[in-house]
């Protein structure tokens, strides 16, 4: 399963990078979203996908899934949500002020280089 997940994560990364390289601001932010999904899944996969039970203590069970990657991912999800929300609003404001969402046009001009 880990091999399969690795390939799937690679695919997510590929799609994310492709989107990030495009000109539209919206596609770039969607790309960052995919990138964080890929990263979270990678964290989980690298911790190992075996294990009998969820990491909640229960009688008679000894084989728990590794809890540490889960804690790390939980932190990462929240942080990436904060950053995504911020960049979304930033993009919205940028579109309102500058009037474009084309990254090639948002280069500045001779005067403010």
């Amino acid at each position: 399963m880990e091999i399969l997940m690795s390939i799937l994560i690679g695919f997510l990364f590929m799609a994310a990078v492709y989107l990030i390289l495009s000109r539209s601001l919206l596609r770039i932010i969607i790309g960052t979203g995919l990138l964080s999904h890929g990263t979270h899944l990678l964290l989980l996969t690298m911790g190992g996908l075996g294990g009998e039970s969820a990491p909640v203590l229960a009688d008679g069970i000894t084989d728990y899934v590794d809890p540490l990657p889960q804690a790390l991912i939980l932190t990462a999800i929240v942080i990436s949500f904060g950053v995504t929300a911020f960049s979304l609003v930033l993009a919205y404001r940028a579109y309102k002020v500058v009037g474009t969402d084309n990254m090639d046009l948002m280069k500045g001009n001779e005067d403010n280089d």
Partner: protein
Amino acid sequence: MSLIFAIFLPILVAIVIPFLFKKISSIHTGWFVLIVPVVLVGHYVTYISAIMDGTTYIDKFEWIPSLDISVVSYIDGLSLLFSLLITGIGALVVLYSVFYLDKDREKLGNFYVYLLLFMSAMLGVVQSDHLISLYFFWELTSISSFLLIGYWYTKDRSRFGALKSMMITVFGGLMMLGGFVLLGIMGETFSIRELIEQAPTLVGQEFFILALVLVLIGAFTKSAQFPFYIWLPDAMEAPTPVSAYLHSATMVKAGLYLVARFTPIFALSEVWVWLVTGVGLLTLLWGSFFAVKQTDLKAILAFSTVSQLGLIMSLLGIGSISYHVTGDLVTIFTFASFAAIFHLMNHATFKGSLFMIAGIVDHETGTRDIRKLGGLMSLMPISFTIAMIGSFSMAGIPLFNGFLSKEMFLDATLSLQHFNVHSLESWWMLFPIVAWIASVFTFVYSLYFVLHTFRGKYKPDLLPKKAHEAPIGMLISPAVLAVLVIIIFFVPNYFGNTFIKPAVAAIQPLAYKVPADVGFHIKAWHGFDSIALYMTLGVFLIGFLLYKSIAKWTPIYGMLPARMSLNGFYDWLMNLSDKGANRLSSSYMTGSIRSYLIYMFAAVIALLAFTMWTKDAFVINLTNLAPIQFFEILISVVLIISTITILVTKSRLTAIISLGAVGYTVALFYIIFKAPDLALTQLVIETVSVALFLGAFYHLPKMDKYEKGKEDRLFRLNNFLIALGVGVMVSLIAIASHSQKLVKSISEYYKETVYSEAGGGNIVNVILVDYRGFDTLFEISVLTIASLGIIGMITVRLAKKKGDRKVENK
């Protein structure tokens, strides 16, 4: 007065000069400055008799003891001679400048601060025994020289000349630092005296030749040797006292000093001998040849300085042959060192006076263009006399000291016949012939300089001012130097014993233990069997004929195109580095974020792929894998389909919903892989995110409106290849790292102690708030900052400035 204090005395005085200039405006500031070199001359004169007996003095100031860096002042024959030149001519130059610079129109405060700074730096250079402090003072001379050349900073030519000299001498200085560091590493000491003692063991070492070449580049740039001489003619934009002081008598001799000082170390290699001699002779010939072409008085003197420095340099080179011979030959070749130091002293006297005369002519007639000058002899008789003494000495005519050193020079080049030059019997002939030709040209330009300026027809209509004799104060300094020129001719051996022999003993410590051992005697008359005598007569004869026919053969200078010259090359190089750097950076700094992302991703791919390839890092291990179940495959397929939908869709709504689908599928993965808290969080956050996306992009245009047409296919292909590379690398690294787990997880500890230590059952939550609570604290801060930022962005609207341009969107 301690030696270190003497070095820094001019700098200390320089601190109060601006106050004196501001507060006491009735007295020319130069009078106060004059005290410094006069005191120092008096100080150094007291050392003469002891130095003649072979005593040396040393004074040390610990600067950075932990790195073994100190300012060490070491006085032997060589450094004493230079110190006396620096302070003596310094005193004369300050006196001259008092009359040359107007106290009401010039910024004298600046001038004298720079000049005193330079004096300290120069004393430091010639007295330093520590390589690092030598370099420190060396660069200080470059900087103060830069300031002095650019003294009239409102003139373009001054700034150009200052910058050019700075570029070239600092280039050389840095090379020299490299050589010093290599020397210091090889000898494990930075003290020159200790390095000289170790010289025999240094010769064979790997970096010896490199250190030699680097130090020589430093010396050649400073002493204006070929091909680095080009800064010196442009430095003539400086006020004349500066040209006289820095660019004839002292700073340009720093390179010669360096060569002389390092001779006991580097002369053990033949590379040194031939580089120093060859470059010196080439510079001599080149400088004397091009001096004739010049029309500016100071430019003639500049090229003449270049050529005379080449002469001294080649003599130092011939002198260092003495390290390669035995028996009587040692004496024959050390004679060249003797001649070098003797001519160095002579040159300082006559060139200093000539520069001052050029300044006087400029001051009293308003021009330095030799084509406009003429017939000044009767108007300026004293200046004419001094100029004549200086030029005749430069030409090597008897009754003046230049004659003595020129004879010694010709003798020294002839002595090369005793040294088997690369096993070719007749090679040595080249050196005296080149020296002879250069002497002829020297003769020509010396006559040209003095006779074209002072004889011939007076052309009052071409001159900006009516010519008249200079004030007496301005004439004192050149007159003193001119008198010295004659005195040295009549009692050369007094100067030889007092100054030259101790200096030669310092250059040739192997041959002479004490100065008294140096047994040379300078004589003006060698007898009829001296070849040098006939060579000198030939110089006079041919030189005089060439001078008479000067108008006929000068057109040959027009044959060399200006672009082929070294100045042309310098300009081309400066232009190239300027424009080239500009073009290079604007070629990749496009300002488009996509370009930078491509560089970054490409670098990531290349570095990772290279590392994996060279380290053979890809390992795949199929044991210890979790089993694959049907649900997992199903969810994977859903994930892939929704991702592809994002990629291909044209509508933003579809894209946002597909992104939501990817998020929910990821949540399903969390459920399958037994991570309930993650699944909960992921579901909630994905919902909020999708809502945000929908809200924020309601107004945005369709997604792929820019990706159309033929050009865009290439655009997309590029992006796809980069993206594919990143994806493949991530997969490969994930598989490889999962296949080679080296240590067990520390999670066993959490699982065992979660209840007994922390009192909780949900291990993930206990990790978040108990074991690793700090992470959570700052993650809360991140959320707070993000929400405050969002509020700020939405509510704070700065008023638009007038004239702000909108980026056009069409």
